[in-house]
């Protein structure tokens, strides 16, 4: 008890005093039996505060670790430093107006978030989207998946000690940004998807750009696999670190590649296919080990699968409309708006009132985002604004798993584990 007093008395917080006290108290109460060392002459027992402003925490994650020497006895995560109340904002916007905000939740894969919102609204408002738009969305989603995994790869390998790798992955991301810029008009927060379709079609130039990039990137990926898979330092650093069994992973609610690395092939694209994922062929990469290296292999294989998905989409894509031709369900095309009176009225009505799903219904739709299951739960009150819009974010679930995984690991592995689980604070903090 002596030591316990010493720990809490040391904390002289200057901001949100009650919050600080509560979180340290919670750390002390984490397990029912708190081991207290009566005399600790070497002072190996300490509390280490990591973040929220720490370069390896990928944003503003705060980790509070109780250490015995180099070993983590207990830990608590403190999140919410990037909380912007996006769900509250959604209740005060029309569905289409809210879309740019979704770009800023998981800011590493904005396209997936747009598609997640659009598919959820289309489900609740019963809108059928044309085939070509579905394929364009799929290509966008897979490009976003690769883009997100590239950032994960770069930062994770950098956390493990190889700095130059980060520059290589960012060179590829830069090319992806150029592709997004070419067809969506934005490099980063793209907002290209629309409720009822997409904003504009691919030009021949875009298609050429994407196809060329896919061919180039395939070769690049082979080289990276050669470089990392047998790299002694990288493998030793990641093998048997943060191991979690399939049962534990399900219980703690991990999602996405982190869950698949334990051997459970839970992928929304297979279980509950959206867009046209039931018409293309792909595999769900899984591993059995459940350690950090398994998560690495899963994501690397996912990138290869994404490349093949993009190629299949181009083969299957036929010419056709890219948006529903119904002014009650979606924005009219700009040609119509500029050259016809009705088009302009419809455009105005969409901006003012928006899409009105039936009154009193609620539904959930999830997509497989790069980080895991990204779902939107919408309750409608019959107006153009959602009554309640809930975002089930994969990073939130994965971070909860991190708190569980970190116990008993070594302090030096903390950053590698955070890198391996790939949380994005914008996504988890909403």
């Amino acid at each position, binding site marked *: 008890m002596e030591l316990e007093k010493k720990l809490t008395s040391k904390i002289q917080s200057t901001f949100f005093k009650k919050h600080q006290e509560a979180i340290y108290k919670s750390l002390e109460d984490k397990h029912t039996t708190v081991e207290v060392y009566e005399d600790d002459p070497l002072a190996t027992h300490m509390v280490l505060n990591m973040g929220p402003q720490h370069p390896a925490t990928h944003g503003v994650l705060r980790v509070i670790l109780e250490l015995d020497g180099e070993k983590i006895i207990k830990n608590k995560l403190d999140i919410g430093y990037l909380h912007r109340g996006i769900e509250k904002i959604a209740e005060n916007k029309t569905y289409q107006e809210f879309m740019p905000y979704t770009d800023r939740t998981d800011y590493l894969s904005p396209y997936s978030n747009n598609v997640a919102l659009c598919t959820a609204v289309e489900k609740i408002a019963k809108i059928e989207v044309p085939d070509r738009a579905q394929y364009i969305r799929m290509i966008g989603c897979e490009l976003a998946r690769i883009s997100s995994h590239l950032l994960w790869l770069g930062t994770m390998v950098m956390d493990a000690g190889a700095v130059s790798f980060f520059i290589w992955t960012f060179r590829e991301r830069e090319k992806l940004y150029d592709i997004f810029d070419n067809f969506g008009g934005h490099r980063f927060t793209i907002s290209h998807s629309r409720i009822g379709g997409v904003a504009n079609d691919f030009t021949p130039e875009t298609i050429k750009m994407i196809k060329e990039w896919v061919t180039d990137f395939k070769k690049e990926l082979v080289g990276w696999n050669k470089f990392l898979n047998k790299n002694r330092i990288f493998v030793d650093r990641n093998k048997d670190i943060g191991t979690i069994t399939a049962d534990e992973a*399900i*219980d703690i609610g991990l999602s996405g590649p982190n869950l698949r690395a334990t051997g459970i092939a839970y992928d929304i694209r297979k279980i509950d296919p959206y867009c046209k994922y039931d018409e293309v062929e792909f595999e769900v990469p899984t591993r059995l080990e459940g350690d950090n290296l398994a998560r690495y292999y899963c994501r690397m294989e996912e990138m290869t699968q994404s490349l093949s998905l993009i190629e299949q989409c181009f083969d299957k894509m036929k010419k056709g409309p890219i948006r529903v031709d119904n002014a009650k369900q979606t924005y009219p095309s700009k040609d119509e708006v500029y050259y016809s009176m009705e088009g302009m009225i419809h455009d105005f009505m969409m901006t003012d009132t928006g899409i009105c799903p039936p009154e009193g219904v609620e*539904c*959930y739709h999830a997509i497989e985002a790069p980080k895991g299951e990204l779902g939107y739960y919408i309750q409608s009150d019959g107006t153009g604004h959602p*009554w*309640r819009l809930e975002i*089930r974010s994969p990073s939130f679930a994965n971070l*909860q798993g991190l708190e*569980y995984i970190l116990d008993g690991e070594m302090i030096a592995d903390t950053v590698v584990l955070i890198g391996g689980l790939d949380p994005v604070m914008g996504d988890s903090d*909403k």
Partner: protein
Amino acid sequence: MNISSAHQKVIDDLKNQYPDDILEVTGYQGDILVRTSVNKIHDICRRLYDEHRFIYLVDIFGTDRFTSEERFEVIYNIVSLRDQLRLFLKVRCEEEDPHVQTVTDIWKAANWQERQTYDMFGVIFDDHPDLRRVYLPEDFEYYPLRKEFPLLGIPGSIELPSTTPDTED
């Protein structure tokens, strides 16, 4: 309302076991939502976990109905990996002193999800091991996703800038 046979099996079993506590079954676009009485939610979750293998808890969240009776809802999103089935459970609780029994002893994943619901709506989960706010600091006095909380500005905090343009004196 179309209920698939797999869903129907689960609902029939629940209705047999808890005839008075399954209050309503609704479905829209394939999502099945079962409303249960608030004091039996733990038992029902336990039965779904043990008998129907709903072992994966995806999400728990609250909603505010803004009605005088049974104002808050807590919705559970659970998945059975064996049957590839998704089910939603819903309970309603009163505005004054809302209490729901925790399900953290069934799914560990419920821990943060329940904290999030508490943080946003002030629904208290009984016997929760660590019921703190998850996003906002402990010092924060309000529950921001309740409908009466304003979109802009925290009551009693810094004054908002004037919305009318400055008039020149």
